[in-house]
């Protein structure tokens, strides 16, 4: 542009030859020179404009935007995990990490380390080398500190003249009840670098999609630490995670865990589980395991205790299974509670080992109710003979054995209900009293609850409403299905037989009785199969399953203790624990005694 104009200037200057004085005064010339200057300046502007807009507009735009523009992440709060009454089992608190810049802290390291060790939960000797680290500008001092504490400590440090401490986002996950329901709720790990939660186990992991929120973002122009009014200001609000409401009852869960711990320790057992179901809805009110862990400090516990044994451990249920066998028989119309059986001392069956009872006896005459009350293996096997081919298996299948309960608890084992192809008479005899069949505690509790609920099996559930697991499965009370397994009459007869178990005169588990209430139950003492020697290793699984009030059941409770070493059985180890938990549940939910007389079915004839 400049070059095109230059010839014109020359012609203008050379045009009419005039004296120097006149030349300055010529308006035309002045105009032309002025125009030229303006054009030159404008052309510089145009060149700059092309450079900014034409060559790389995006990078210049972002540079301009970054100047004085602050972007902050609006952290989304992780949803809480609540019990059925809204009490928190896991909740999130705003948290910060305290980070040091050793380049600034190295000089005052010992004083600063002492200051921090006094105020934060950190060790003097751990942080001292970090405050002095060379070639580093970033050292963690404390992670997941509640925001109020972290900001006050850092501002106090600054006031005392210690520079180089900053805070960054680091969410805190708090389990206010510690080990209560930790086996189900699970725990989270140290937050990731970007400040998001890392779920590791239990519901935290299974329902992470539900609990996890979406972080928001705010962008605004800043000058001298203040927002510029009418400056750029966009906010994308954070979407908080949703709460997960479980069917658990925190207080009942707590009480059950303490009673279970005592029962396991007193009996010298290895581990144990308690399941409490609401008989009418199948809601899991309690699923306790021992040993368990403190969700606030999961790493202090044995790794084997971090899951839920009640669903992951399978074992042979033993005599508790007899009530399923008998309930099926009554439903099929083969027997009644008063069916008379002549029970020999030892039963020798073709192709199998001799079957004996837990107590020595000669030939005795028991009714079916007596078989249950005294937990006679021989009597059960004799009654089982009345089953048609495959009938027992289809009943057990309908009771839910051999299939996972689908509650959404991690690591559930389905247990083993032998396949039809290997089903034999000898196998059926053993299964009739609870051997050669494996269950998990929740499965067995749901099966016994079928009898409590008038013969209708309800899927147990741990989530109130509905939730989707990480494997895409819909779980919760909304998805629990019901299925009639035995008739109402069969369920009532079985209940009456089970009531005789806790009778102080004829039953084997008077310790399971709850004063003032009618209780139906059944003990179980099973030999434990060891996968190492592939045999029964001489240890036992003792259990007690039952429900109350017997004529209008509200709760079904199943207590299992593995490998007690004090020689106790299902009645003496599981029974008292059952009684305590049932008594507490009935009190807690204000269930009055029904006021009717307990079953007086004859046990002998």
């Amino acid at each position: 542009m400049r070059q095109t104009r230059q010839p014109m200037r020359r012609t203008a200057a050379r045009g009419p030859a005039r004296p120097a004085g006149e030349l300055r005064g010529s308006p035309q010339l002045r105009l032309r020179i002025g125009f030229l200057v303006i054009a030159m300046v404008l052309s510089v502007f145009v060149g700059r404009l092309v450079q900014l807009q034409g060559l790389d507009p995006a990078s210049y735009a972002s540079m301009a935007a970054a100047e004085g523009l602050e972007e902050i992440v609006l952290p989304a709060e992780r949803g809480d995990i609540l019990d059925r009454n809204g009490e928190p089992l896991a909740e999130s608190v705003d948290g910060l990490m305290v980070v040091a810049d050793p380049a600034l802290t190295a000089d005052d390291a010992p004083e600063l380390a002492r200051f921090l060790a006094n105020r934060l939960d950190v060790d003097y000797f751990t942080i001292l080398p970090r405050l002095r680290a060379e070639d580093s500008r970033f050292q963690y001092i404390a992670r997941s500190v509640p925001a109020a504490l972290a900001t006050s400590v850092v501002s106090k440090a600054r006031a005392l003249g210690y520079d180089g401490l900053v805070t960054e986002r680091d969410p805190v996950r708090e389990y206010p009840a510690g080990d209560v329901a930790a086996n189900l709720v699970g725990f989270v790990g140290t937050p990731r670098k970007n400040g998001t939660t890392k779920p590791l186990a239990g519901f935290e992991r299974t329902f992470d999609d539900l609990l996890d929120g979406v972080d928001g973002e705010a962008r605004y122009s800043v000058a001298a630490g203040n927002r510029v009014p009418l400056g750029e200001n966009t906010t994308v609000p954070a979407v908080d995670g949703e709460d997960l409401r479980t069917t658990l009852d925190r207080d009942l869960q707590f009480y059950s865990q303490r009673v279970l711990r005592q029962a396991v320790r007193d009996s010298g057992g290895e581990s144990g589980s308690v399941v409490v179901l609401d008989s009418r809805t199948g809601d899991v009110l309690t699923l306790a395991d021992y040993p368990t862990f403190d969700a606030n400090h999961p790493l202090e516990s044995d790794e084997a205790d971090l899951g839920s044994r009640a669903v992951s451990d399978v074992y042979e249920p033993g005599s508790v299974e007899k009530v399923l066998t008998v309930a099926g028989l009554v439903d099929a119309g083969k027997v009644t509670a008063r069916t008379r059986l002549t029970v020999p001392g030892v039963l020798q069956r073709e192709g199998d080992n001799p079957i004996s009872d837990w107590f020595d006896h000669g030939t005795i005459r028991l009714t079916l109710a007596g078989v249950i009350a005294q937990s006679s293996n021989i009597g059960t096997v004799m009654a089982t003979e009345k089953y048609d081919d495959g009938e027992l298996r289809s009943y057990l299948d309908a009771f839910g054995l051999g299939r996972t309960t689908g509650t959404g608890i991690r690591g559930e084992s389905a247990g083993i209900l032998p396949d039809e192809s290997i089903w034999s008479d000898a196998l059926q005899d053993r299964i009739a009293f609870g051997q050669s069949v494996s269950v998990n505690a929740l499965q067995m509790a749901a099966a016994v609850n079928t009898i409590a609920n008038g013969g209708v099996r309800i899927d147990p559930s741990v989530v109130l409403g509905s939730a989707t697991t990480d494997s895409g499965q819909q779980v919760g009370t909304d998805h629990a299905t019901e299925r009639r397994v035995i008739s109402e009459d069969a369920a009532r007869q079985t209940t009456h037989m089970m009531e005789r178990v806790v009778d102080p005169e004829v039953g084997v588990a008077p310790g399971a009785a709850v004063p003032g209430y009618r209780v139906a139950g059944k003990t179980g003492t099973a030999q434990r199969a060891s996968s190492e020697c592939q045999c029964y290793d001489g240890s036992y699984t003792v259990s007690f399953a039952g429900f109350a009030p017997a004529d209008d059941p509200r709760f079904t409770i199943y207590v299992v203790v593995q490998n007690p070493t004090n020689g106790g059985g299902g009645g003496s180890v599981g029974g008292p624990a059952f009684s305590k938990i049932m008594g507490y549940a009935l009190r807690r939910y204000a269930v009055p005694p029904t006021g009717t007389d307990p079953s007086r079915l004859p046990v002998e004839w």
Partner: protein
Amino acid sequence: MSSTARAIQTRLPRLAEAAVERARLTVVPRGRTRAAKVPFVTLLSLLMLGGVVGLLLFNTSMQQSAFAATELQDRATVLTARQASLSMQLERLRDPQNVARRAQAQGLVLPAAPQFLDLSDGTVTGTTDAALAPGTLALDPPPAPLPAELRPPAPTQAPPEGTLPGDRDRSGDRDGSGDGDRSGDRDRDRSGGREGSDAGDRSGDRAGARDGSGREGQQDQTGDDTGEDAPRGNRDGDAGGGRNVQ
């Protein structure tokens, strides 16, 4: 320009020249604009001045409220954090374990059975058993046994008068091994902390593995059952101790 005007003039017929001249004289009356200028300029100046001052004031107040907003925002953040930590404290106090411990400390005991009063007819149902003995519910696990290195050492016998030459060496060894142990512990702690976050994954996997192995073992065992000689059966009830299956 003037030349064209002249040309038009020459071309036009000079008809009604006087009228044309009169008309030209009256087109622009002089002095009228001068009279209106002063108030108009004053008005404009006032408007401009008012606008500028108003804008300045508005801007200042905006700045002022921006400061206030920032300060309030900071206060809100601090208060939110405080509220969160207070509610955390509250939840810790409401922890059933804590409540139960305090109740036991005050001498409260668990009832054995409740009684019910029916308001409609005034009947009382339920048994009147004595409450369970205090401490029926053990709230805390018994303390774990001390790790070996913290247990008080077994009483050692004082060596007889005079020391044998070997004794000093032995004591030196003991010190050395003690140091070794301690440093080993520290290493273990540190690695535990670092890898801790993976524990959950591992436990999940392990549950699956346990399931698989359990099943395998038990199926095998059912296959073997018929070959076994021992009599089988379940043991039940209280007294089952020794006389179970045999």
